[in-house]
Each structure stands twice: as C-alpha cells, then as structure tokens.
C-alpha cells in the first residue's frame, strides 16, 4: 500500500533522500514543504551566485518537471508550524496534512549575536537565496560592508561582496581566520590573500553593537573602535533548526537526536541533515549529509543500514583560495609536525604525526594531494618508511623502501622539482647530460633552485641519481660547531616551526652547546628579529660588542662615535656640536669617513652615553657605523646645484636614509644616489645604488668596494620617487628575509639570482607585501639607540670602583 511521506524542508539533504527513494522505486506519496519560496537547490553554490559567476537557475537541483514526474506535492513558501504525533499530521498556513512517515529536514538557522541593533534593516545573515539576493541588491549601491565572522560563510560573503565592488571589512573573534579548519600559518596565508583582494581583516575583534537609527550605519567594537557600514552580514555560526521537533516533544539535544537509521524518538518520524544530532555529533557539511540521506532512504525502503560518521576532511575554496584540512591538527605532546612552505607561491603544508601515523593535515595554496593525505589519515598508514618525503605528496613516493634518493629516482621526467620556476626533473636531467655537474651550473642553466632555494636538496638528489658515483653530495657547511645545520636550514626552521626565541631554536635544531657561541648567536639573534619583529626581543648579549654598545670598538678598547649626517648633508650647528663634543671628551682623532660623515675616534667607554647625549641634544642620532644594518646613503649635489643633475639626488638620498635607518640586515647595507650617470656618488659600487636619469631612476643592486670590488646589476628603472622608495624597501626586506647572515647583497644575489629578485620586485603584490613587512619591522627598530642608552647608562659604567682601602 502506498504510504504518505511528508517532508519538512526542501534542502540539500532531503533532496538527496527523495532521489534515492525514487531511483529505488519506493512506493511513497510525497508531500514536500519548504519555508523558502522554491524547491531544492544547491545551497553551497550560493557563493558563485553572490559573486555573479552563476545565476539561481544554474544551481537548481530539482525543478518543477522533476517534482511532477515523481508525483511530489509541493508547498513552497510554506512554513510547517506544528506536528501532531497523536493524529500524525503536520500543520501549516495551508492547513493540515496527514502522514504515515514524517521526515524532518529543516537544516539550520544562522546564529544571530544578541547585540543592540541586530534587527536593523541592512543586517543580513547568509543562508539562503533570499539572503543572497538581499546582499546583491545592497551591493549595487556600493559603500561599505562589514562581515561579522571569519569562518567559511563569512569569508564567502566577504569575497562575493568585494567582487561586487563593496569596501569589505571582516571581523573575526578569534586570532586567525577559519580557526576550526586551519592552523595559524594557513590562516595567515588566507588572510594575506584576502587582503590582496582589498578585503580588510580584523582578528580578535568583538562586536559590541550595531549602530543606526532607521537602518544600519555602523558597527561598534568592544575596544570602542567604530566602523562605518551600509551593510552588515552576520555569519557567526549556525544552530540546528529544531523548534518543530522540540514542540512536538521529540528528543532534542543540540540537534534532533537520531539513531543509526536516522529515526527520531518517534518510530514514524525521521530526521536528516544539519538539524540532527547523532552520537553527540552535529553535521555542517554536505558529505556526511549525503551519507545520511542514503542510509535513510534505504531505511524507508526496509533495507536497514547503519550510518557511521566518517572522519572528515574539508577541501574548501574560499573564492579563489585553495584550502584543505583533515583530521586533528592541534599540536600536542608526542605529536610532531612536518612543515613544507613555498613562500614564493604561497604554499603551505603541515602534517601532524603521532606514533608514525598522520593524524592531521592542513594545506593551503596547493591542495591537489589533499585526498592522498586524507587516505593516509583515514587508513592510519604507518609512514615511517616515507617520512622524509611524505610531505611532498604521492608523486614522490617510489617503491619501498623509499629513501629520498630512490624516491627521486622513481620520479617521472615531468615531475616538477623547482616549483618557483616550474622546472621538471627532465629539464634538469637534460642539463646534466649537457654537462652541468654541480648545483651552481644547474642553477644558471635551468634556474632550478635559483629562487626560494627550498628545492636545493631535491635538485642535488637528481644530480646524485643521474651522475651516480661521479657526484658527491656536497656536505653543507654548518653555521659553527654548535650545530650540524646550515644557515639556510636554520632560517627555514625558524620560519616553518615558528621558532621565536633562542632556546626554541637550540631545542628544535638540536644545538650541541647549551647556549651557542660567538659565531651562531649573533646570526640567530638576527634571524629571529628579522623574522619575528613583533614577537622576538633583541638579545644584546648575542650581539658583537659594536652592536651592543652602538659604537665601533678600537684596538685599545676605546670606541668611535659617528653621528648620522643624512645624505651627507650637515649644518654649521651640527659641526659646532661635533667640535664641542670632541673638545669636551678629549677625542684624539676627528676624521672624515669614506661615507660622507665625521668619525670621532678614541672615545672612552664610560663617556659614550654623555657624548651621545650632547650629540642628541644637537639633533643628531646614531649613524650605525657599527651595525649590520643601514650604514650610509651617499649622495651627490644633484639638481640643487649641479648643472648636469637630472633629479634631486640629495633629497632622495635623505628620504631613503630616513626611511631605512635603524633597520638590521644580514650584513651592512650601503646606498648611494647619483644625480646623473656621471655617478659622483659612486652608486654603482654600493649594495643598492640609484642613478637618476631624465626619465626616472635606475635602481641597481649588488655592488661592493671592499674585499671584493663589484659593479651593481640593474634591478629596474622606475619613473617616480615613490616607486624608488617601495622598490628599495622591498629589495631590502627580501634580503633581510632570505639572505644568510654576513652575506652582503652581492653574495645573496649570486645565490638566488638577479632574476628571482627582479620577480619579487616587479610582482606588485609581492612588492607591496615586502614593503609592508619592512615598515612593520621599522615601527620597532627605527629608534635612536643612543637616546635609549643615554637613558640607561649602567652597562657603560663600572660595576664598582675598588680602592685597596675599601678592599681591606
């Protein structure tokens, strides 16, 4: 006998149940209610509708013909308001309908945070087509949108609204975006990508109130910051829509409680989708809902099956950003991480391993191997045999035992080795066949490993595999005898493992000495402060005396003092103050340096704070003549005076020096700006040199005139001063982030290649990000160390002065 099946809710889950029933030839007479004024559609495709890539028609899954063909009585735009379990009926505005079997598939409702102003017109949630249309309509007027919630839904809304031209700010309560799916590092990359698209992201932002009188006008944060808003999208979470079930007296916890056949506490009532709770678990993604739908359809057709929630992996696309996460990726005792990053491509992968089994994975940027990792998690595969290569994905897993070499040997010729430059194994093999026999030759011939360098090891392995015994893997030079790691290894560890203190580095990198030595500590101190300007506190005890005392030590233990003379320009007042200081502190030698400024040589240690104080009072700051940091910006007289000058070289030099001073770099950094190609400032033998020409500025890098004499290579030519500033900051920051400690720019350039640096600088997004990181670091380091030490002179003073009498 045909049974009456009433379905409440035409969502993604119930749609799938109906398909299975009709496909299985089940004998049901179906009545379908939906509060929305339409039938089943693909809710997860609302985002492309919002962004304009798709229309509603594109995402309909079941149309009028389908319902008719399957004899479904549809009541769309109709809320079911009550269930009478005794009478076995449901009630809606359209009257009462009887059922033999009832299916509740009401999904979930967006959670609204209970703040003042939440009901104002212009505050929208993001759940269905009506919400989507409301957002599209609001965006037509342009203006500002604030999205509350930095989870999947909020970010989809933000991306869509930005695409439609709104000025979007995302507020997120937690420290990083999508914290349930992503770890901090991946959350950071996601944020960066969104920011590149013009979306502002504020984390740790808690909404205090929504402001406005007749309609929304703004959002007020707990910290009293106010944001203007013409539209507020609330996407802070969802809660199962259980009201009908609760009113009908069914067992409801957070969701409607169901058993393994999706039956509720009433044997004739079933529930499916986001509204259910099974075994304490709620479901918010379609994959498990589809499993439920299959089990439920079979149950209704008397083919009982058991619903077992699977381990979930999430592969998501937040409009244009690929992300993947699976399993449990929280750090914990006994857990180990393997991290792989390709900063140039914005790729991040992290595996969490416990007892040789991968328990969690987070991927950002390149998620192609997500399913393979998910398989390893699900099957609890023992990965000890492929530990060294597992992070690279399935393409790198050759036959067992997969030591790195045989894994590389097993790679096909088209396997990509160098991601930055897109170099495949075959190209490297060809270059080797053509005579390249070491990494340097390969780099210059194929560009493999010439960029971020992460693949250097792989390229060497290709060399080893191809050349066999002819190739001896170079044993990389460790930093010093405290460690077996190279500078590059340690830098990578500091970034990938987010090591933010000296002890963290020593621990993670297996230092052999308790606290390093005079070789490694200054290097580590530099790497830490350059990579984590906000988190790491500079350690004076890990600096060479010159940088600790902000003066150059002399052979007799006295010091030299060099005040800054911006761009080599000084004034009579400054000169008088220098002369007075020289007299007052009995400075034995006053010398004009090769860097267009004055050196006071032979100052006693204990006089340093006092002489600085005098110079400070005359408006002068430390010249950092002692630092691995910005030294001088040499200039020529330029258009101000010279008959050949094409641009204001002196002014630009001063501007550059004022922007860059105080920054720490792997080695010293010297700049010069010449006003024309006659090049009187000798710009072409500086780390960064600028030669002004009629049409703009030629920026070249990698010069030197010390132990090696080198001419600079042209990096780029730009038309405006503003661009010079950005390019110089960006190249400096890239040098700061990537170079080995004590490598001048020319040495770094020899390693990574001028082309790679050029790519960084010409890609405007990368350039902007570098500039931003440089500026951020300067907020901390562009301070006059002299002024700071004048205030705290203790280290320069003796700890005690003992006369023999006192000792007696």
């Amino acid at each position, binding site marked *: 006998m045909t049974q009456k099946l009433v379905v409440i809710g035409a969502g993604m889950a119930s749609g799938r149940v109906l398909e299975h029933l009709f496909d299985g030839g089940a004998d049901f007479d179906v009545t379908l209610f939906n509060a929305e004024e339409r039938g089943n559609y693909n809710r997860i495709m609302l985002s492309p509708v919002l962004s304009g890539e798709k229309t509603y028609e594109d995402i309909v899954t079941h149309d009028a013909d389908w319902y008719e063909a399957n004899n479904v009585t549809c009541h769309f735009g109709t809320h079911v308001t009550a269930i009478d379990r005794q009478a076995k009926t449901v009630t809606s505005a359209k009257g009462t309908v009887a059922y033999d079997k009832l299916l509740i598939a009401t999904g979930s409702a967006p959670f609204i945070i209970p703040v003042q102003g939440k009901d104002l017109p212009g505050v929208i949630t993001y759940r269905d087509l009506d919400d989507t249309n409301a957002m599209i309509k609001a965006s037509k007027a342009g203006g500002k949108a604030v999205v509350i919630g930095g989870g999947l839904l909020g970010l989809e809304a933000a991306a869509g609204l930005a695409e439609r031209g709104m000025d979007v700010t995302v507020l997120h309560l937690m420290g990083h975006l999508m914290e349930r799916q992503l770890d901090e590092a991946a959350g950071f990359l996601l944020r960066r990508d969104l920011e590149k698209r013009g979306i502002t992201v504020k984390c740790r932002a808690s909404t205090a109130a929504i402001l406005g009188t007749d309609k929304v006008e703004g959002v007020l944060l707990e910290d009293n910051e106010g944001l203007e808003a013409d539209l507020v999208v609330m996407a802070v979470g969802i809660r199962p829509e259980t009201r009908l079930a609760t009113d009908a007296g069914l067992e409801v916890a957070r969701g409607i409680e169901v058993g393994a056949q999706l039956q509720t506490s009433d044997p004739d009532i079933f529930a499916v989708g986001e509204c259910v709770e099974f075994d304490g678990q709620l479901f918010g993604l379609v994959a498990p809902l589809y499993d439920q739908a299959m089990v439920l359809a079979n149950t209704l057709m008397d083919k009982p099956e058991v619903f077992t929630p699977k381990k979930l992996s999430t592969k998501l696309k937040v409009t244009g950003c690929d992300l993947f996460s699976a399993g449990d990726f929280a750090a914990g005792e006994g857990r180990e991480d393997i991290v792989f990053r390709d900063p140039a491509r914005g790729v991040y992968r992290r595996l969490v391993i416990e007892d040789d089994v991968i328990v969690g994975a987070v991927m950002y940027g390149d998620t192609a191997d997500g399913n393979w990792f998910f398989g390893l998690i699900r099957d609890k595969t023992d990965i000890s045999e492929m530990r060294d290569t597992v992070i690279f994905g399935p393409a790198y897993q050759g036959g067992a035992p997969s030591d790195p070499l045989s894994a590389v040997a097993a790679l096909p010729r088209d396997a990509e080795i160098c991601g930055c430059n897109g170099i495949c194994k075959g190209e490297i093999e060809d270059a080797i066949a053509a005579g390249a026999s070491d990494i340097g030759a390969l780099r210059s011939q194929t560009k493999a490993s010439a960029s971020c360098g992460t693949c250097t090891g792989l390229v060497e392995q290709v060399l080893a595999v191809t050349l066999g015994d002819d190739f001896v893997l170079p044993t990389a030079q460790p930093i010093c005898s405290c460690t077996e790691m190279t500078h590059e290894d340690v830098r990578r560890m500091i970034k990938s493992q987010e090591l933010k203190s000296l002890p963290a580095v020593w621990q993670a990198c297996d230092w052999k000495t308790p606290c390093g*030595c005079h070789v490694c500590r200054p290097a580590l101190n530099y790497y830490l402060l350059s990579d984590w300007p906000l988190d790491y506190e500079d350690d004076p005890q890990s600096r060479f005396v010159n940088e600790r005392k902000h003066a150059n030590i002399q052979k007799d*233990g006295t010091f030299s003092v060099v005040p800054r003379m911006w761009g080599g320009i000084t004034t009579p007042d400054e000169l008088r103050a220098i002369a007075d200081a020289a007299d007052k502190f009995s400075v034995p030698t006053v010398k004009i340096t090769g860097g267009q400024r004055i050196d006071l040589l032979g100052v006693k240690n204990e006089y340093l704070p006092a002489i600085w104080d005098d110079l400070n009072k005359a408006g002068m700051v430390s010249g950092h003549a002692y630092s691995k940091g910005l030294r001088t910006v040499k200039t020529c007289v330029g258009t101000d005076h010279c008959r050949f000058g094409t641009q204001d070289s002196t002014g630009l030099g001063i501007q550059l020096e004022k922007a860059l001073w105080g920054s720490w770099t792997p080695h010293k950094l010297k700049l010069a700006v010449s006003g024309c190609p006659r090049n009187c400032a000798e710009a072409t033998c500086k780390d960064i040199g600028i030669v002004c020409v009629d049409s703009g500025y030629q920026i070249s890098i990698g010069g030197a005139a010390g132990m090696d004499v080198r001419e600079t290579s042209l990096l780029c030519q730009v038309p405006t001063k503003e661009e010079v500033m950005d390019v110089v900051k960006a190249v400096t920051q890239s040098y700061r982030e990537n170079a080995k400690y004590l490598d001048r720019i020319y040495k770094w350039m020899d390693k990574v290649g001028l082309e790679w640096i050029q790519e960084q600088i010409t890609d405007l997004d990368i350039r902007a990000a570098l500039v931003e990181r440089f500026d951020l670091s300067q907020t901390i380091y562009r301070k006059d160390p002299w002024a700071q030490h004048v205030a705290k002179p203790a280290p320069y003073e003796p700890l005690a002065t003992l006369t023999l009498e006192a000792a007696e």
Partner: protein
Amino acid sequence: MSNWIDIAALDAVPQRGARLIKTLHGCVAVFRTAGNEVFALDNACPHKNGPLADGIVHGKAVTCPLHNWVIALETGEAQGEEGKVATYPAKVAKGRILLDADFLQQRAVA
C-alpha cells in the same frame, strides 16, 4: 681564610654578560653565565689586551671582541692558543656577587 667583599647585586650583570670593576691597578671583568655562575678575570686578553668584558659569553667561556680568542672563564686559559689570564675567586650569595679581597690585593701587589 677568605675575605669576601660584597660587590653588587647579581642582577646588575646581565646573564651571558659582564661588567667591569675598577681597581687602582686595572680592571677586573665579572662575568655571569646563563646558569648564574659568576667568574672574575683580568679584563685583558692574553693576545693583545682585548677588553674581555666586551666579548660574547657562551657556556663557561668568553670570546674576545678583538680577534675572537676564546677564553675559559673557570681557568682563564685561551682555548686552542697559548695564553692565560688571571682569575679571581668569585661567588654568589643571597643574590649578591662576592669577590675575595685578598686575591684582588695580591693582584695589586704582583
């Protein structure tokens, strides 16, 4: 019998750092290690009199700032080089640094 005199609070010397004590006959460097041990040595490198107090302290050694000789704080001996600096008894008690006045005096006499 030793004749300990109170010099200063331990905290006046940074960990892995040093401060100078002036005596009538030259400077003594007081070093503090990461493990809060203190050592007192002449502030003059056996190589070319480099100011050891300005060096980098690591483990129980200091590297001279002028030409990187490494001097053992416990013995005053240069590691891998010929040379030795004088050392003086020093200790920490109740958060204070104490030096032995008799030894400092002997230094003055010598």
